[in-house]
């Protein structure tokens, strides 16, 4: 049963990655191209030689983007399937589709929205090469902290829901998540490496496109998994 849920999750994630990449290509690629043009102009002005291209831009914005989003989607989908295996029968009531929708929402908030509020996505041309290690570590720490906050919130909410009703339980869960995620966000150092003359509208459009790409990814994982999910009766069977 668990293996089948894992596979279903990865399949839903693969398809979700396809949709997310299509959205990203439409909504995000124009900003990426503009940012690369800014980066090249800045490098040229500074007298730096152009960097050699190992993978052509055509491959990067086409097959490369789709491959990245689909691999990432499949990986998230795998975790989604495992989280579903655990959550089903424990939270969200008896309807597997409701559990899938709840998990997809929680996943988007914990792994995309909250980390983006602390460390928003940056287009090419932003970010110094010598800080990449620290920035990557901080980003993963924020994701981990946010995910931990979500698990804590779910556990608290579930316990309180059993005693004081679903509404109060859910509301307390939200408060626990927001408090814990805010705590992590305030404790972690901020990063701002945006050049002074970087176009503000470009930054905004890129960040919006990035958030949109992830919203498509998580929505599609939730819907896709719900479509692929066996009925509640099959899930309660012990095989």
């Amino acid at each position, binding site marked *: 049963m668990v293996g089948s849920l894992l596979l279903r999750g990865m399949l839903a994630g693969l398809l979700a990655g396809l949709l997310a990449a299509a959205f990203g290509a439409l909504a995000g690629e124009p900003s990426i191209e503009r940012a690369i043009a800014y980066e090249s102009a800045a490098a040229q002005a500074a007298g730096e030689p152009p960097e050699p291209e190992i*993978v052509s831009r055509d491959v990067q914005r086409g097959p490369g983007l789709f491959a990245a989003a689909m691999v990432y989607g499949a990986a998230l989908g795998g975790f989604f399937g495992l989280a579903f295996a655990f959550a089903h029968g424990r939270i969200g009531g008896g309807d597997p589709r409701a559990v899938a929708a709840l998990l997809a929402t929680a996943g988007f908030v914990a792994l995309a929205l909250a980390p983006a509020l602390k460390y928003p996505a940056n287009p*090419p041309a932003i970010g110094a090469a010598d800080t990449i290690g620290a920035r*990557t570590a901080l980003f993963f720490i924020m994701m981990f902290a946010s995910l931990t906050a979500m698990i804590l919130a779910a556990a608290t909410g579930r316990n309180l829901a059993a005693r004081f009703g679903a509404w109060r339980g859910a509301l307390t869960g939200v408060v626990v998540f927001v408090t814990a995620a805010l705590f992590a966000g305030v404790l972690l150092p901020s990063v701002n490496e945006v050049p002074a003359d970087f176009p503000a509208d470009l930054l905004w459009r890129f960040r919006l496109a990035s958030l949109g790409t992830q919203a498509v990814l998580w929505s599609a994982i939730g819907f896709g998994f719900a479509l692929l999910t066996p009925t509640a009766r099959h899930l309660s069977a012990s095989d």
Partner: protein
Amino acid sequence: MSKALSAPAASLAPIPVRDILPWLVFGGLFCLLAIYFVGAEQGATALLPGHFMHELVHDGRHLLAFPCH
């Protein structure tokens, strides 16, 4: 158990954690590795030499909000 069988919709038997754990260890490791290759390989750290992986997933890495460059 007989209670759960008599009312399957109201109280579904959750999958025991000991059944999930082995899948979480192996499936989770595999999925984490995939996330690492899309999100961080040949950026902060590198298992493979060169820049091919970095450039291939470049646009996806940016759009999926991972730090890059």
